């Protein structure tokens, strides 16, 4: 209950941003806020894995891509050619398929988004278990390498398979109707609705994780971070906790992938790229590793600035610079800075905002 209360200010901020943008007629900001919220969902999941369980993962863009790509592929590739096979008939009778029409008016028969979402998330979780068992035995740089390798494989598979659209990715992904009247799609008319769906999801994720890290499991995880052997000696089943956290963060990433893909109406191989994974890890680090709120803040701010294209062609350079500066001067994350310093930095950022827009 206490955790529910602690996210209330965030809820107020979310509503405040909505009111502010509608009052100042800048509702288009909500689009990027929605996308940032989905990326941040991945980032807070990764934060628990890295900051609390102490396991680095350079492959989370892979899980994001598994979620996004599977959901996109299942809901766009028409099954009409296989209409008469037993499997498709069975799925259809179970109400798991959805018929519709493509751009040219041809009949389509695709898997319904809910089923696709569940399949995608379960697949990501399954792969996380299979990968996690051997990978989490590794430590330090070796763990980083193994997860990086996993990410590259996913990227290559997405790039090489025609089913996943090769270099073009998958587009024209249909809307994800959560409930009648509530759908995840990039329609302008649904902008406000989607803003609240994304932030609602993020808030739920936040409450879950805050509860998790404040529970027995959370204390066990911190024990593992401190010392594997010591935690083991105290009777903590370290490998199991590590695996569970790994799977949990993979599920967060996959859900983010599914929702963002439906929201954008498509997904491309760059979402699976290694640099994306590196970026997520870097954002968690500048947010202050074991600091969910810091990770959330940096996730929102950095993704928002980059999605808005505030820095134009210098976007990557500014990102690199922010990483270096924060790591040099505030190694424990952005929220460990004192207020005066933070204010100074905010002023600095405000200036560069204006320069970018001018």
């Amino acid at each position, binding site marked *: 209950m206490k955790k529910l209360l602690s996210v209330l200010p965030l809820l107020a901020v979310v509503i405040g941003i909505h009111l502010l943008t509608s009052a100042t007629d800048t509702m288009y900001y909500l689009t990027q806020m929605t996308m940032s919220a989905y990326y941040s969902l991945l980032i807070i999941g990764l934060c628990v894995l890295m900051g609390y369980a102490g396991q680095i993962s350079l492959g989370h863009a892979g899980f994001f891509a598994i979620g996004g790509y599977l959901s996109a592929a299942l809901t766009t590739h028409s099954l009409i050619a296989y209409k008469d096979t037993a499997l498709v008939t069975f799925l259809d009778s179970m109400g798991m398929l959805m018929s519709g029409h493509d751009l040219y008016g041809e009949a389509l028969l695709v898997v319904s988004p809910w089923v696709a979402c569940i399949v995608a998330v379960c697949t990501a979780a399954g792969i996380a278990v299979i990968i996690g068992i051997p990978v989490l035995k590794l430590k330090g740089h070796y763990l980083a*390498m193994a997860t990086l390798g996993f990410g590259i494989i996913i990227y290559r598979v997405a*790039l090489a398979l025609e089913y996943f659209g090769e270099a073009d990715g998958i587009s024209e992904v249909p809307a994800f109707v959560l409930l009648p009247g509530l759908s995840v799609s990039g329609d302008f008319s649904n902008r406000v609705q989607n803003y609240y769906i994304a932030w609602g999801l993020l808030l739920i994720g936040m409450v879950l994780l805050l509860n998790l890290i404040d529970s027995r499991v959370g204390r066990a995880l911190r024990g593992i971070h401190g010392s594997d052997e010591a935690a083991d000696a105290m009777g903590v089943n370290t490998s199991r906790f590590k695996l569970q956290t790994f799977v949990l963060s993979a599920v967060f990433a996959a859900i983010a992938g599914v929702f963002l893909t439906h929201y954008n109406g498509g997904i491309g191989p760059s979402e699976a790229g290694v640099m994306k994974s590196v970026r997520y890890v870097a954002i968690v680090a500048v947010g202050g590793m074991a600091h969910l709120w810091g990770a959330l803040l940096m996730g929102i701010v950095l993704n928002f600035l980059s999605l808005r294209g505030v820095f134009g062609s210098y976007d990557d350079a500014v990102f690199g610079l922010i990483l270096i500066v924060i790591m040099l001067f505030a190694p424990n994350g952005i929220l460990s800075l004192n207020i005066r310093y933070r204010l100074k930095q905010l002023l600095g950022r405000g200036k560069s905002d204006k320069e970018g827009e001018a």
Partner: protein
Amino acid sequence: MLCLGLLTRCQMTTELFIQYLMAGITYGSIYAIVAIGFNIIYNTTGIINFAQGEFVMFGGMIAISLLQFMPMPVAIALAVAITMVIGALIEICFIRWLKSPSVLRMIIITIGISILSREVGVHIWGESIRSLPYFVGNEITSIPIFGARISPQVLWVVAASGLMVIALGIFFKTTSVGREMRACASNRKAATLCGINTQNMVTLSFVLSAGIGAFAGCVMSPITYSQYDMGTGLAIKGFTVAILGGLGSSGGAVAAGLLLGIIEAFSVSVVPLAFQDAISISILLIILFVRPQGLFGSKEAAGLSEF
């Protein structure tokens, strides 16, 4: 060319075998050099310098730019020297004055440096693909070896890599600076107590690894071309090789580099090119699962790991 293809399809001839093998060895020695660059810095600081691939990019790109004003050997020497200065500057500006930084903190800083260097690269040289001319002959010059035809540049790459490994070996074994760096690698505190300036050793390790990265960048440029974003791919390959060989082991890096290069070269004949990376990395992951310390991360190789 088509005839050759048909001919070789019927029989996995020795020529074809050697052709693949040489391609594998070429790329393998490039990977090995990048991995040794990783290892040198890893040994003195305990971090993986993610900007290693950018040193290779800078080396190649600077040499290409300088070529307009001077003959090639001078351009390459100057490019290597400039990259070494860049390496030193990076260490002095970003790493040197940190007090007992955590490994993750340093890694994130090197990631930031790598992103920044890439951006500097794209703003100086643009997105075009460039290359140095062939050192000897041109694209179609070839030397027959056991019936296979090998570009002389391939021999340059292999010879340069071999020479660098030998030179580094001599440097670390016989010179007093090399010995001090090894002392710093095996126990930093003890080295400090013996009067070795460990901070300078760290700077030196950045200079050294920038230098060999840049030289590799020049030698490989005619075959693989240079582009502002070549560093990421190379860094990933080099990181893979360094890990596979057992971090810190240069002998392991050479063996693992050649292994990776040869696996990649031969995998082309079995699976589509698009899966090349996926196949080689899957094999590496399997090796890593069976031997979590890397192929040569054993006690035997620990003797070599001082490098």
